[in-house]
């Protein structure tokens, strides 16, 4: 459509968006303000401007150390690395396991498919509060407690079903003609999958991986429960440690939260183009 929009229309849509952006950013700006504030006299304020600005909280979080023998370990860097490692592995495991399965669900008909999909959807409806303890005992049985692998296994238990649902819809939306053409040209079914369908689904796979990454990256209860060494903890556990039994260091909590969310924001920014196309067909079908 090549109509020129009227000026009023243009202004109206920008107005709507600016208001929406303000709504979206306002609570986050309070977190930013808290992270950079020194002493705060309590008063009801409208604008989230840091009071008595300071970088002390940020420094305290980033430079937290631990002495092991004569060696000083920068906990923050170590834990940031753990977070990224665990979240990447979760995303990779989730997506790698889900890709062939979701492809099969989209392209084949087989005995047990409907029942399988239905029960997979059903698992999403069961609150984790009851299944957490059995999962813990299972990890113990597998000897995976106190290891990052165990944590990844735990996270994978949620990321795999999610990825299967997302990617199944994605593969369904990709036209089969190309694969069929490849098979007419002599490719096997598997080659067609690997060389035709997979590249076409790439943006969607990236987005699904991003979701899996995020959910693992932000989790702390399981991480604190499963891991047995401070050097193995992930960043959200560090954040949580600023909240004690009687009191909490909210400024450090906020400062840490900001740093923790930076990589995710960066990933979102990079992936935002795909985010739209990747989700086009995503979703769950029962």
């Amino acid at each position, binding site marked *: *459509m090549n109509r*020129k*929009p009227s000026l009023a229309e243009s202004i109206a849509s920008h107005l709507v968006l600016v208001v*929406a952006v303000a709504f*979206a950013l306002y609570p*986050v700006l*309070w*977190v930013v303000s808290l992270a950079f504030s020194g002493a705060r006299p309590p008063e*009801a304020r*409208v604008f989230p401007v840091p009071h008595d600005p300071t970088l002390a909280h940020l420094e305290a979080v980033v430079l937290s150390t631990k002495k092991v023998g004569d060696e000083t370990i920068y906990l923050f860097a170590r834990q940031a690395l753990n977070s990224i*490692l665990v979240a*990447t*592995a979760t995303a990779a495991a989730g997506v790698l396991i*889900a890709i*062939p399965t979701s492809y*099969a669900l*989209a392209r*084949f*008909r*087989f*005995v047990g*498919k409907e029942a*399988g999909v239905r029960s997979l959807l059903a698992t999403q*409806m*069961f*609150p984790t*509060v*009851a299944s*957490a*303890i*059995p999962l*813990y*005992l299972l990890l113990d049985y597998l000897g995976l407690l106190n290891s990052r692998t165990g944590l990844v296994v*735990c996270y994978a*238990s949620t990321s795999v079903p999610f990825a*299967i*649902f997302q990617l199944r819809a994605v593969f*369904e939306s990709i036209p089969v003609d190309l694969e069929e053409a490849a098979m007419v040209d002599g490719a096997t079914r598997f080659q067609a999958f690997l060389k035709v369908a997979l590249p076409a689904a790439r943006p969607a796979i990236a987005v699904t991986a991003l979701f899996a990454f995020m959910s693992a990256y932000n989790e702390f209860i399981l991480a*604190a429960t499963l891991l*047995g060494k401070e050097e193995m903890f992930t960043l959200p556990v560090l954040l949580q*440690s600023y909240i004690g039994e009687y009191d*909490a*260091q909210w400024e450090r*909590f906020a400062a840490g*939260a900001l740093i923790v*969310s930076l990589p*995710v924001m960066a990933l*979102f*920014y990079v992936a*935002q183009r795909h*985010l*739209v*196309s990747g*989700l*086009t067909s*995503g*979703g*769950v*079908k*029962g």
Partner: protein
Amino acid sequence: MRSRILASFTALLVLLALLVSARCPGLVAPARAEERPIRVWHAKRDAEARALGEVLATYQGATLDVLPIPYDAFARKLEASVPIGDGPDLFIDQHDRLGNFRGRNIVAPVGDALEGEAAFIGPALDAVRAQGAIWGLPIGQKCLALFVNTALAPEVPADLEGIAELKSTLPRGVYPLVYEAQGLYAHAAILGAFGVPLLTPDEQFGVVGPDAARSLTLVRWLLDQKAIPEDAQGALVGDLFKAGQAAFAISGPWFTGGLSEAVKQRTRVVPLPRVRATGQPMRPLLGVEAVFITPEGARRPEVRALARHLASAAASQVRLRIAGIPPARADVEVPADDPFVSAFVEQAKVAVPQSSSPASRSVWDPMDRAIRKVLRGVATPEEALDEAKHRFDDVRRPLPPPASPAPLALVLGVLCLFGAMRWLRQARSGELGPALKRSLPAYKYVLHAVLVVGVLVIAPLVVGAATSLFASRQEEPQRYVGLANFIDILTARGGPLFASGSFYLVLAVTLLWTAVNVFFHVTLGGALALVLHRPTLRLRALYRVLLIVPWAVPSYVTALSWKGMFHRQYGAVTGLLEWLNGVFGTRLEPISWFSSFATAFTANAVTNIWLGFPFMMVVTLGALTAVPDDVLEAAWVDGASRWQRLTLIVLPMIRPTLAPSVTLGAIWTFNMFNVVFLVSGGDPDGTTDILISEAYRWAFTREGQYGYAAAYSVLIFLLLVGATRTLNRRKLPAESAKEAQPAPGDAAAQIHTEAA
């Protein structure tokens, strides 16, 4: 193409590296128990952690493996890991959880780690005594005392009422006193002055009778006099005192560390005042910090030696010097001129040791609610306490009697038989074989996922669901009770079916919660997507990224930020109202968000809508890209109005794409426990709790009744499965048309019918 394979390979390598790195400690020959380092767990931070580090550094007997754990995860981690032999040898915690620890076999008597009882202060040692044995070594005492801003109050009034009466002489906007009036921990000190115990000697609810009610009336009076700020929680107590907006504060030794030097100069600590009404001093709860030894650690002499070292006089001196922790030993001198610690030592002498019985933990939640109700003025003290007692009894009600597992075995047996017969019939009909053969190629693609999902998702879920047939409580062993948990929940435990906290009322709130959230997620997200989708829009990428921000920042942080914004006195929403009043001359009153259901529910919903609209926006944006321009163009040429184009063309075209995401969003919202827990916390009076937060309370704050929580989970599960089934059935005609298509295995045909 190559990059694709490369990427998968890198991912695989990362996974492998992880596996190897995780296994590495295991590759080193497994050390015998006697040789491995002593594992020490604690939940200390800052000054206390530094003091602990210094004490541990002077211990020479063995190598140590020290693990600080966030307080929130501490008890759960102990309870999960010690029983399976994966816990610490020694840990530091407060004595009030001793009852739970003993019930779960997490602690052992200290044995010869105790040099002699005379070294310790009597009450501190009594706190860790049970059944004639000593279960921990006291290393410090914690209780509340009175912090004085000497610049505002050079003289300390003799009693609490006297402090309140300072209101008229203090500068405007300065409160005489600030403390966490809404919680039982601080209120217990006033209860102490009235001689009211939290728990009776036979472990019944103790906060009953006229004196208990008078204590609440007193606090209500403090609030009416504006002697204390309303709703002072968490950081606010400290902020008000530090900013010089409160003459007195009631807090503990941990408060000292957060004071700047300038504030410290004008601060001193004295024991809590008397209460004029009774003439008795306020008696705060006393928590005794202690070193506990796990059953595994108790077998090793060097662990007991370490415990002795941690509780030694020298160690107490270190903790006193670095963290200002009042010692629990009789032989450690506290400098009398210390303006901070000496008062706490004095205060500890009149403090009431917290009960370590598991029953005492069930007093907290009902009492917190009762206090808040009275302060809000929605209940008289008598009513509120009656309700609290009722709640306590409800949590402590006897577990259902053990049931015979025979009916279950019978039902399972019949089900198995039925299933086997069905399979057999299918196999005999001769259709199954060829169908299976045709399915074989597909199975190669799904086998690993079936294994993974089966082991990691389905198995824990089935076991979890099965726990709903058992009943347990911290100190009582688990027992099979059949469907008793379900019957209890569905009959509201014998109470009225629509009472506060009953399954049906909570279900109604949950349905409202889900409906409101999903509605706004879809409309808000959809509307923004439509605006963003306008082809001529400038700055689209920027808007898009900024609007996704709520989704990218960890929700436990932003939910807390929202909660702060809803604070009646100091929240940003109130700031906004005042600003509007200033600009437009309106007279908008600050809203007390968490004191009525409607406003608290709104606060929760606004937070969750904020968190969830970006997802729906992104999904809708994606769906909109599939609407072809030429169709819209044609409609425009035909003279369709903007509204007609939207409702007759765009919406019908994106609906099928949106439907699955809306379903998923509804399921997520139904089980969105975080927001409710962090923002309203169920306030007022548990009315904003939804089913999932109710399940969490039974599992974690009501004495670990996991069976009961599991029963809630199963009910949630059944409700959701039932709902999605009904919804699916409604679109059955289309589905069956698809099923009728021939050519199994012909993917093209399948795709085309689905697209049609």
